[in-house]
């Protein structure tokens, strides 16, 4: 509950950054580099180019959340479809889909994201695409195993025994029982996605300077960690809090979705 409210707050802050930000996030000042908290109206200090850090964090939330949520939604659409079809149809179709998915699954996710982004080139759309490809296999795997489990339960057998068609069984008996766990799993991937997106930006494969994005900010502030560690750690803290919130939200969702609870 608390984390859901905190997440809502983070989202709202990012959406209304235009109104909330005390300063222009791109206005540099050589005189005000790496100032500490509260320095002359800069509530959270300034970064290595003298830009207001609070404003940059607020604006950075936009890109970070976009790159955290959109790949997961896209991967959910593709991966869940593949997995549910594979699990429901079974047999050769299952083998074909799942073995293909396994090929992608075999690569470590970070490596795969870097490889795809690297070959496509830097930029936000490419980063989102590469993250989507990274997340399709795990979602398809979960969807397939949940669907296979449900398909073999007796109530699906009973539905077949009462003469129901495949589509009706899929809609009433399978989808209703598999979407919950798949959603829960996908939600847990959002925090991973934010971290991976930040990682891509950190490596220069995602968002490019001077855009504000938490991972990129973490990268550019890195040399300042000895001069002003508190300021340098802030984007990292933002990533941490957001991903923990998504993880806790996942736990909450899992409990809420459990019919026997």
């Amino acid at each position: 509950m608390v984390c859901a409210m905190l997440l809502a707050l983070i989202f709202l802050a990012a959406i209304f950054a235009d109104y909330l930000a005390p300063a222009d996030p791109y206005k540099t000042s050589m005189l005000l580099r790496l100032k500490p908290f509260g320095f002359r109206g800069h509530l959270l200090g300034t970064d290595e180019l003298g830009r207001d850090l609070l404003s940059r964090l607020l604006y950075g939330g936009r890109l970070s959340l976009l790159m955290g949520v959109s790949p997961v939604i896209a991967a959910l659409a593709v991966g869940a479809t593949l997995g549910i079809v594979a699990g429901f149809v079974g047999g050769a179709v299952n083998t074909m889909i799942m073995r293909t998915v396994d090929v992608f699954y075999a690569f470590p996710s970070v490596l795969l994201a870097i490889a795809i982004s690297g070959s496509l080139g830097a930029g936000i759309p490419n980063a989102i695409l590469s993250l989507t490809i990274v997340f399709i296999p795990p979602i398809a795997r979960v969807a397939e195993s949940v669907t296979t489990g449900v398909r073999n339960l007796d109530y699906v057998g009973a539905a077949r025994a009462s003469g129901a068609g495949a589509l009706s069984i899929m809609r009433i008996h399978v989808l209703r029982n598999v979407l919950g766990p798949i959603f829960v799993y996908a939600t847990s991937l959002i925090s991973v996605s934010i971290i991976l997106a930040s990682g891509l930006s950190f490596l220069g494969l995602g968002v490019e300077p001077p855009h504000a994005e938490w991972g990129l900010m973490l990268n550019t502030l890195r040399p300042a960690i000895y001069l002003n560690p508190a300021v340098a750690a802030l984007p990292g803290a933002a990533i941490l809090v957001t991903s923990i919130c998504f993880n806790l939200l996942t736990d909450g969702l899992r409990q809420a979705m459990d019919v026997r609870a």
Partner: protein
Amino acid sequence: MNAAEPPVLQVSGLRKYFPVRGQAAWSRKLHVRAVDGVDLSIRRGETLGIVGESGCGKSTLARLLIRLIEPDAGDVEFDGRRLGIRGGISVREMRRAVQMVFQDSFASLNPRLTLEATIAYAPAVHGASPAEARRRAHSVLAQVGLAPEQFADRYPHELSGGQRQRVNIARALALQPQLMILDEAVSALDKSVEAQVLNLLLDLKDELGLTYLFISHDLNVVQYLSDRVAVMYLGRVVEIGTVDAVYDRSAHPYTRALLAAMPAMDPDARATEPPLQGDPPNPIDPPSGCRFRTRCVFAEPVCATVEPPLAAVHPTASTAPEAADHHAACLMNLPGSRHSRAPQGALELA
């Protein structure tokens, strides 16, 4: 029960082999012979019990009959109409006339549907209007002893095991079937609840004129509920006959061993047959000839070479009227089989 009337369900040569997974592509293909040539007929209005150890193919047989799995071979005839041929009965029609109650009362109910939705689903599939399906759901709930106004909107996890099994029975009844397959339907319930559900089944049968195929490993329950019994061993029917014939005058040594393993309340009535040793042989590679010979105390060399057919038990004076109805697959029951205990006589091999 009129023997002259055509059987409601006639099964002949039913066979299902499951491929064994995980074998190398170049090796000989191995199969689990789950159901290996079963012949059965169920008469209208009777209860046919099927007993046997775990893994003898009882549940596979049930799933084959209702076409949840496709048989490799064999014919199924419902009400004289063959299944799956032009002019015969369609699988869909068959699934309306034959319904099944599963063992696991929890797994057989969709956790996300109310009882009303679960029961109304089947009639709706068969074209009933939502209101009509709902009315049907309420009336069958009442029939199984669950007040519709109290239970219609509940979910399966809110019920006890006995109540859930009543719901499963109600779901099966909702299509107004002629034949109900009860696959270990009461096995998971505790004894007092089991008795209640059994009595409910008996009442429903009288009330609705149902025919039951009752699958169980519980010999007492089968004896209580059934008119006739079929004993299965390794995918085959080894003995079939009326309850009295099979229980009191068992012709197959396996049946006798099963019955001997049944705990008796009266110490004097305890059977003296030796209990069975070991597990059933691997159904991937069943023994040659008689499948039971590896555990049979009467096994002789001839048993390894001749596969005993299901033949009428040699009639004696006292059992003559029922003899035609009592069959066993044992060489000791087959005149002229060269088994030392076979009946000596010039009877034809029927």
